[in-house]
């Protein structure tokens, strides 16, 4: 009969419409500003710089090695390396970024800076409500705006942050053991080249 297929389709629509009153999974719309879906742990949106401890300037992990600046596909990172060294969170003198800017109007949140960073200093954020009325200054984020604490990182990506913390702690323990060994060796009087302790940093 002509029109049978049409009626069948309409029956399907009616089933969905009436079903939405009884069945929860037919009612899929989330009324956004009032209701929100649960955050997904892996989601990413724009990078931030991780710092340890309380002071963002002192605790910044970034040592200004310029790798992310070089590897960034759209070239949205701008870094100026410091000329002097300052003690970092563990008290070790390190270079630091004098200027670290990310142009978020260019950034495409691809995560490649995170992957190439050998110091776990740059990570992906999850904040997405970032609209602004100034399209120049407010979209060029400096290092103060980018700096976020390691606790914040642990809060937004718990699994990933736990792995990173464990890895860093392991590296620090290794370094400590090594430097202990070096001081002991020095005490004995054996000549150990000082470069060896410096090279341990990146391992």
């Amino acid at each position, binding site marked *: 009969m002509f029109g049978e*297929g049409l009626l069948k389709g309409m029956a399907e629509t009616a089933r969905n419409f009436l079903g939405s009153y009884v069945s929860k999974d037919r009612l899929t719309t989330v009324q956004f500003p009032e209701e929100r879906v649960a955050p997904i*742990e892996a*989601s990413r949106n724009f990078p931030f710089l991780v710092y340890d401890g309380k002071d963002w300037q002192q605790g910044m992990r970034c040592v200004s090695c310029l790798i992310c600046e070089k590897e960034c596909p759209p070239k949205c990172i701008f870094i100026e390396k410091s000329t002097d060294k300052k003690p970092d969170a563990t008290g070790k003198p390190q270079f630091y970024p004098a200027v670290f800017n990310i142009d978020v109007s260019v950034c495409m949140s691809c995560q*490649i800076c995170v992957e190439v960073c050998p110091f776990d200093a740059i990570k992906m954020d999850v904040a997405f409500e970032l609209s602004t009325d100034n399209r120049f200054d407010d979209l060029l984020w400096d290092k103060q705006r980018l700096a976020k604490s390691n606790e914040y990182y642990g809060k937004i990506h718990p699994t990933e942050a736990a792995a990173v913390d464990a890895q860093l702690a392991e590296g620090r323990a290794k370094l400590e053991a090594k430097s202990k060994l070096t001081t002991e060796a020095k005490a004995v009087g054996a000549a150990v080249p000082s470069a060896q302790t410096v090279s341990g940093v990146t391992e």
Partner: protein
Amino acid sequence: MSAATLPAVHLTPKPSIDGSEGQLLEVSMGPQHPSTHGVFRMDVVLDGEQVVKLKPVFGYLHRNHEKIAEQETYLGSMPYTDRLDYFCSITNNWAYALAVEKLAGIQVPERAEYIRIITGELTRLQNHACLIGFLMQDMGASGTPLMYAFREREKILDLLEALTGSRMMCNYMRFGGCRVDFPTGWLQQAQKVVEAFPRFLDEYERLLAENEILMARTQGIGVLPKELAVNAGVTGPMLRACGVNYDIRKVDKYGIYDRFSFRVPLGEHGDVYDRYMIRLLEMRESVKVLQEAIRDIPSGAIMDAKTKIRGFRPKAGEAYGRIEAPKGELGFYLISDGSPNPYRYRVRPPSLINLTVLEDMCLGHNVADVVVILGSVDIVLGEVDR
């Protein structure tokens, strides 16, 4: 009417109605037309309602992808491939990774191959679901079918976000494997989505497959002859709807596709209805592949340990990696001169090549059918213009 009396189609529309050819009308459809699936323009010459000439004009979304990739490192182009066909970034990643792996001779671990198949087939599901939704929207069924399709797509996008961190711009594959392993509970969630998918397909078939209006609008419309399709290099569901048995998953067996039992649905008439049905049937086959892959996935490494992320320099040479993307054969052709960036980088986009037969399919049909035929080609302008 002889061809000599037709007005020339120019890039910029100009008034073509003069005294002598008052019967013909030149219409510029697009680039901001809602049914052109992006910034795509068609210069259509009409005789009343009928199309007598059609000239596709594209390039409005050209972003110089190939040339930019020649300035970038191999890894740096990976996020840009997401932006080619933004519906299926996973398969774009896959094709590019495959080309680079061929170039550098990298072996992919077994688990990574399974992950690629699972994510790739999920991408195919959501792309086809979207396409049939958009096709119905183009036909004037505003809302209902598209929303049903998007409801299913949303579940798959949630899965992709939980795995890759992004819903559409996944940037997931790496040379020699995949970036991250499944988070806890992901596979169970994926299995749930895959198992529920045939129910959506049944529902969709009940909703539309026998619909008289759909049949009247699509059957016998936009027929693409077999010979023309083969000669024009059309691939993917478009080609299979004409009855040509050519699926790169079967022909080339890239990755580990030879381990899965699935069939290749074929059409008969090559019209819009066949192209619509092919997509529905292909989704059912994809579900089979997914179920097998989720069942069989082994544990192990997901990245080739020998491949470095930074400072990647393949030896001089050339390679062509191709996969069966949801839209057709997606290929990347790379020439390396041993430097960190490719000497030549070329994309073979399925959308662009499938689009070349648009005029042949549209001639003699009404303007309203042009929209439907274009919808059935399944184009994404990000890929057409690159």
